C-alpha cells in the first residue's frame, strides 16, 4: 500500500482498483489533476501578483540600465546611470541621510521595544491596558503622527522645548526647523511609532523562554541583571535577529514619514534615498535613472540582510 502512504494527499484509489499493481497511468493523471486544481486556487491571486508585483520588480532591474524619460523611448545605456549617480550630489546627500536615519532608528527602536516588552511581561492587573497603549502609535495614521509631532517639536512654543527649558536648557534645538536637528526629530518620531510593533514580537519571544531557566538561575544566586544578561537575552536571540533584519529593511526604505513630516527639508537635510527615487522617477519622469537608484537601495538592503544572516549563523555555531 506504499502508493497511498507516500502520497498523503492523493485521492484514495477507487475500490475496484485496490490492490492492483500497475498504477503509473493513474498517478500521472493524479499529478495532472492536482496541478490543475492547485493552480486554480492560486491563479486569482497570482494574476494580480504577477502583473502588479513580479513584472514591476523585473522591470526595475532592466530599467536601471536604460535611459528613458516620460517622453521618448527607452534606450540601453549600460552603466551610465550608475556613473551619473556617483557624481550626483543629491544622491550622496540622500545616501548619507538614509544611513544616518538607519543608524538612529535601528538601535533606538530595538532598545525601546525590548525595554517595553520586559516591563510589560508581567502577570499583573492592568498590564493589558499598558500593552494596548504602547501599541497604539503603530496603528495611528501617519499624517496624524507627523502633524502632532511637528507641533510637539515646535521650536519656540512646542511642549518638547518647553520641557527642555524647564530642565534648564538655555538653547533647545530647533528640531524640524533646523537642518541639524530635523533628522533626529524624524528618528524620535519613528521610534515612538514603531516600538509597539516590535514590542509585540519581543513579548511573544519572552513567552518562549522556559520559566525553569529563571528558577535555575535564581537557585544559582543570579541577580536580576545577571538573569537578564544570561537568560533573557540569549533566549531572545532568534527574535532579536528577526527584529534587526526587519528594522534594517524598514529603515532603508523610509519614505512616507519623511514625505509627510519634513518633505526632505529643511534644505536637503532629511532627503532620503526612497524619496529621491520618488522625485526622480515619478515627479521628474526620469524612469531609468530612478530605477538605478532603486537598484542601489535594493542591494544595500540585500547586503545588510545577508550579512546579518551570516553573523547569526556564526553565532549559533
Amino acid at each position, binding site marked *: 500500500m506504499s502508493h497511498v502512504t507516500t502520497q498523503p*494527499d492523493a485521492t484514495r484509489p477507487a475500490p475496484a482498483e485496490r490492490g492492483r499493481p500497475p498504477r503509473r497511468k493513474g498517478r500521472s493523471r493524479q*499529478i495532472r489533476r492536482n496541478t490543475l*486544481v492547485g493552480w486554480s486556487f492560486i491563479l486569482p491571486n497570482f494574476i*494580480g501578483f504577477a502583473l502588479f508585483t513580479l513584472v514591476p520588480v523585473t522591470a526595475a532591474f532592466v530599467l536601471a540600465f536604460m535611459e528613458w524619460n516620460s517622453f521618448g523611448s527607452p534606450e540601453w545605456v549600460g552603466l551610465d546611470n550608475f556613473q551619473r549617480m556617483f557624481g550626483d550630489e543629491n544622491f550622496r546627500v540622500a545616501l548619507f541621510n538614509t544611513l544616518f536615519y538607519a543608524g538612529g532608528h535601528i538601535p533606538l527602536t530595538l532598545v525601546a521595544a525590548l525595554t517595553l516588552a520586559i516591563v510589560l511581561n508581567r502577570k499583573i492587573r492592568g498590564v493589558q491596558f499598558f500593552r494596548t497603549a504602547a501599541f497604539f502609535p503603530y496603528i495611528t*495614521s*501617519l499624517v496624524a503622527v507627523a502633524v502632532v509631532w511637528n507641533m*510637539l517639536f515646535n521650536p519656540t512654543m512646542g511642549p518638547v522645548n*518647553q520641557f527642555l527649558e524647564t530642565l534648564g536648557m538655555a538653547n533647545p534645538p530647533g528640531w524640524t526647523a533646523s537642518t541639524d536637528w530635523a533628522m533626529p526629530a524624524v528618528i524620535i518620531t519613528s521610534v515612538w511609532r514603531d516600538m509597539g510593533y516590535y514590542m509585540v514580537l519581543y513579548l511573544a519571544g519572552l513567552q518562549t523562554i522556559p520559566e525553569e531557566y529563571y528558577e535555575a538561575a535564581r537557585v544559582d544566586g543570579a541577580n536580576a541583571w545577571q538573569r537578564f544578561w544570561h537568560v533573557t537575552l540569549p533566549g531572545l536571540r532568534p527574535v532579536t535577529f528577526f527584529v534587526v533584519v526587519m528594522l534594517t529593511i524598514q529603515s532603508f526604505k523610509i519614505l512616507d514619514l519623511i514625505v*509627510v513630516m519634513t518633505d526632505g527639508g529643511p534644505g536637503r537635510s532629511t532627503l532620503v534615498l526612497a524619496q529621491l*527615487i520618488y522625485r526622480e522617477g515619478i515627479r521628474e519622469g526620469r524612469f531609468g535613472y530612478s530605477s538605478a537608484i532603486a537598484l542601489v537601495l535594493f542591494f544595500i538592503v540585500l547586503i545588510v540582510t545577508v550579512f546579518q544572516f551570516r553573523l547569526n549563523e556564526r553565532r549559533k555555531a
Partner: protein
Amino acid sequence: MTAMPDAPSPASPAAPENTPATAVRARRNRRLVRKTLTYVVMTAAALLVLVPFAWMISSSLKRNNEVFTVPIQWIPDEFRWSNFVDIWDRIPMVTYLRNSAFLAITITFLQVLTGSFAAYGFSKVRFPGRDALFVAYIATIAVPWQAYMVPQYIMMQEAGLTNTFWSIILLQAFGAFGVFLMRQYYMSIPDELVEAARIDGLSEYSIYLRIMLPLSKPALASLALLTFVNTWNDYMGPFIYLTSNELWTVQLGLRSFIGQYSADYAMIMTGAVISVLPIVVIFLLGQRYFIRGIATTGLKG
C-alpha cells in the same frame, strides 16, 4: 513560593515565633514595593507613549489661539466641541471618509479572498513547481516596494489608470503578504483532516469552503484587520496616484488641509482625531487578532 529554609512552617500571619513572622512581613513588604515600582515604571512609560495623543485630543478641543501656550495647558478651560462640527464645513470630510472606507473595504475583501484561496493551493494541494512558485512570492516580500514603485507607476500610466481607484485597488489587493500569512496558518491544520474529507468525497473547493475557511477564522480576522488598517493609513499610494480632490482619502485630505491652513492648529488636530478614530475603534474590537497576526508572521517568518 519556596519557604525560607529555616522556617518550619510556611508561616501563618499570626505565627507566634518572632523570626518567621518578620521574615514574611519583610518579604511581603518587598513584594509590595516591587509591585508599586512596576506600576510606577509602567505608568511613566505609558505617559511617555500617550503624551502625543493627549496633546492631539486636548488641542482639538481648544480655541486656535489656546493651542500653544506657556506653560502648556493640558486640559482646556472650555471644551470647544464645536470644532468637531465646524470641520465638516471646512473640508469635504464625508467624501474623504467615504473614499477611505471604500478603498479599505474593497482591498481587504479581495486580499482575504484571493489570499486564503491561494494559500490553500500552496499548503494542501501537492503539485510540481508549487514550492518554487511560493519562493517567488516570498522573495518579493523582501524587495522594498520603494524599489519598484516607478515601474508600477509607468504601467498604471500606460493603462490610463492613474487618478482612479483602480490603480490603488489593483496594486494593493493581491499582495504576497496575505498569501504568506494564511499559508502559515493552514500549515498548522493537520493534513489528515483534509485527507479524511477527501475520502468522504468532498472536492477540494468544498474542503476549502466548508473546512478550511471556518477553521481559519482567527487568521482571516488577523489578515482582514491588518489589511484594513494598512489601507486606511496608507499615504504614499493615494499620494502618488490620486490627484483629483473628489478621490482623496482621509490621509490626503488632512495633509492638504495642513498645507493650506498651517496655522489653524486646533482644526488640524480635530481632523487628526477624526482620521484616527475609526482605526482606534476597529483596533480595540479586534485587538486579539491584530496582535496574533503580527506575532505569527513575525516569529515564523
